C-alpha cells in the first residue's frame, strides 16, 4: 500500500477518535441523547477490515457503529446530525447513535438488538449469491453476541447454504460489564465457528495492518465461493459499554496496558518508519479537527424534523393510519 493510502487509513482512525471524543463531550452537555457506545480503542479493527472490501461488498454491524460508519466512508456531518436527532442525519433523526446507515455505501446499519443483524447478514449475502454477484458481506459483532441464538442460527445457515459472509468478531473482552470468560463455555471464540464447519483465524485487533492482512485472506476465501469465514479480532474498548458506565468491573491497570498498544499510536509509528515526515501526520490531525468542528456546526445548525415526519417512511405502499 502506498503512503497516501496508509495516510488515509490513519485519517479514518483519527476521525473516529476525535469524533467520538467530541460526542462524549456533547453527550455530557445533553446535545446527544439515548444510548451511545463508543468505539475508541477498536479503531484498527473496523478501519483495517473495511479498508479491504470492494465497493460491491456489504458491511453491517451492531450498535457500537460510529467507527464502522466512518470506515465505510460516511460523512461525519450526517453522523453527527443523526446523533443530534436532526432531519439532516443519515437516518433523518429516527435512529440515533445506534442506527447509523448509508445504503449508498452498502453500509446496512448499526443494529441494536444483540446478534439480530447476524441473521440479516445471512440474507444480505444470500441476495448477492442469488444474483451471482461476487460481493461478500462483512458482519461485525462483539464477543457477547456469540452467546445469543442468532449467532448459532446464522452461522449454521451460512455454513449450510455456503453464504458469502465474513464474520468479524470484535472481541473486546466484555459483554456490557461482564467478562466473556464468565459467560462463555469456550474462551477461544473461534471454537464456536469451528463447530459449524467454518474456517477461522484470530488477529491482533489493535494492529491495523494485521487486521487488513487477516481480512484480505478471509474475503479471498469467501469471494472464491467457499462459504463463510470467521475472524476474531482481539481488541479493547477504552471507554465503558455505553455512556454513564463507571468501569467498576475492570482495573485502570488493565485499561492502561491496552492503551500502550493504542491502534493509532502504533500506526503512527508505522507511518514514520516509511519515512513520512511528522508534519504530514500533524497536517492530517489538523484537517480532521476541522472536519469534526464542521460536523458539529452542521448538526447544531440543522433543523429538527417536523412532527409530520413521524408518518414518513413507515410504509412504501400504503398511508399509515394516523391517530
Amino acid at each position, binding site marked *: 500500500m502506498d503512503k497516501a493510502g496508509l495516510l488515509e487509513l490513519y485519517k479514518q482512525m483519527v476521525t473516529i477518535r476525535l469524533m467520538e471524543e467530541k460526542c462524549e463531550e456533547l453527550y455530557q452537555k445533553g446535545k446527544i441523547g439515548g444510548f451511545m457506545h463508543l468505539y475508541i480503542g477498536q479503531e484498527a479493527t473496523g478501519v483495517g477490515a473495511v479498508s479491504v472490501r470492494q465497493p460491491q461488498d*456489504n458491511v453491517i454491524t451492531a450498535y457500537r457503529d460510529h467507527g464502522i460508519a466512518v470506515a465505510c466512508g460516511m460523512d461525519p456531518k450526517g453522523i453527527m446530525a443523526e446523533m443530534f436527532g436532526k432531519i439532516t*442525519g*443519515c*437516518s*433523518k*433523526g*429516527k*435512529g440515533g447513535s445506534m*442506527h447509523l*446507515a*448509508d*445504503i449508498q455505501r452498502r453500509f*446496512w*446499519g448499526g*443494529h441494536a*438488538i444483540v446478534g*439480530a443483524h*447476524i*441473521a*440479516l*447478514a*445471512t*440474507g*444480505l*449475502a*444470500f*441476495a*448477492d449469491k*442469488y*444474483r451471482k454477484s461476487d460481493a461478500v458481506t462483512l458482519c461485525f459483532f462483539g464477543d457477547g453476541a456469540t452467546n445469543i*441464538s*442468532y449467532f448459532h*442460527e*446464522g452461522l*449454521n*445457515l451460512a455454513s*449450510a*447454504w455456503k453464504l458469502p459472509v465474513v464474520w468479524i468478531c470484535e472481541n473486546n473482552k466484555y459483554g456490557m460489564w461482564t467478562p466473556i470468560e464468565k459467560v462463555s463455555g469456550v474462551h477461544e471464540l473461534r471454537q464456536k465457528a469451528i463447530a459449524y464447519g467454518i474456517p477461522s483465524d484470530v488477529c491482533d485487533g489493535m494492529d491495523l495492518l494485521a487486521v487488513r492482512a487477516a481480512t484480505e485472506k478471509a474475503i479471498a476465501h469467501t469471494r472464491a465461493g467457499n462459504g463463510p469465514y470467521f475472524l476474531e479480532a482481539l481488541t479493547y474498548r477504552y471507554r465503558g459499554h455505553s455512556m454513564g458506565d463507571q468501569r467498576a468491573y475492570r482495573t485502570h491497570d488493565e485499561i492502561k496496558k491496552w492503551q500502550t498498544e493504542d491502534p493509532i499510536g502504533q500506526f503512527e509509528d508505522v507511518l514514520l518508519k516509511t519515512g513520512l515526515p511528522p508534519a504530514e501526520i500533524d497536517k492530517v490531525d489538523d484537517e480532521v479537527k476541522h472536519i469534526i468542528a464542521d460536523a458539529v456546526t452542521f448538526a447544531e445548525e440543522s433543523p429538527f424534523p417536523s412532527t409530520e415526519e413521524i408518518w*414518513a*417512511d*413507515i*410504509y*412504501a*405502499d*400504503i398511508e*399509515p*393510519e394516523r391517530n
Partner: protein
Amino acid sequence: MAVTTIAKALAQAMAEEMERDSRVVIWGEEVAAFGGTYGATQGLLDKFGPERVLDTPISEGVIVGAAVGAAMNGLRPIAEIMGINFAFLAMDQILNHAAKVRSMFGGQFECPLVVRTTSGGGRQLAATHSQTFEHVFAHFPGLLVVAPSTPADAKGLLKTAIRCNDPVMFVEQATMYSDKGEVSDDPDHLLPIGKCDVKRTGKDVTLVTYSKMVSISLRAAQKLAEEGVECEVIDLRWLRPLDMETIYTSFKKTNRAVIVEEGWPTYGLSAEIAARIYAECFDYLDAPIQRVAQKEAPLPYSAPLEKYMLPKPEDVIEAVKKVL
C-alpha cells in the same frame, strides 16, 4: 375459474408470482422437498429449482432474519413459519426488524417480505400449538397483516402480498387447507390492500370477522335467516390496515354488531373494533356490541374440551340474539 383447495390456491399464487418476478424466493421448514407441511408449496421446487425454493434448518429467528436481509438487498422473499406458535421465536425479527428497518433508518431500506404462517386451533395439538394471535402483529405500525377465508381470497391476497413493497404477515388457518372453492386463473387477479369483503348482506345485525370465523359466522347467519334475522357478514381480510369505513357503513344500517374472532377476547381484535365502533357510531347504537371469542384458557388436547372452547355457530347465534 376452477374449483380448488386453499393449499393449491396458495401454491398457484406463489408459482404465478415466481414466474412473473425472479426476485421472489421461498424458504422455510419443509417447503422444498416435502412441498410444505400443509402442501402449500407443492411442486415449486420442481418448477423453480433449489436456488429459489429452499429448505431451512429449524431456526425461526434466522428464517425471518435472513428474509429481512434479503428483502433489504433487493429480493422479495416469502419466508414460511410452519406455525404461528413458532413465530414467537422469530418475534424480534418480525417486530423489531421487518416492521422497522424502513422507518428507523429514515427510509433508506426497503423490506418487501411475506411471512406465511398457520394459526388457530381445532387439531388436538394442545396449548402451545393451537394459538390464534395474528392480531398481535397487527398492533405494530410497519407491518401489514392479512388472513384469508376462502380459496379465492387466499390466492388473490397472497399475490397482492407478494407484490406489496412492505412486510406482510400472511396468516392461514390450520384447519382450512382442504377447503374448496372457485379460484381465478387470471395471473393478475389481485385484491385491494386494506379492504374488507362483505360475504353476506343483511339489514339486522353486522357480523365482523375474518379467516376461519367467516365460515362459522356464515353458518350462523344461515340459521338466523331461517328465523327471519338478516345478518351482514363482513370479512376483514386485512387486520392491518383495518377497513373501518365498510364496518361503519354497515353498522349505521344495522345499528347492531357482533364481532367474532377465534382468539381470546382480552386485548383482542374484537376489543379494538368494538372501541372504534363505539367512538365513531355512538348515536347509531341500539345494543351493546357482543364479542364471540375463545374461552380464556390454554387450549387443551382433549377433543370435547377443545370443541367447547372454540367459537361455534351456536355461540354466534346466541350473541346475535343478545343484540336484537
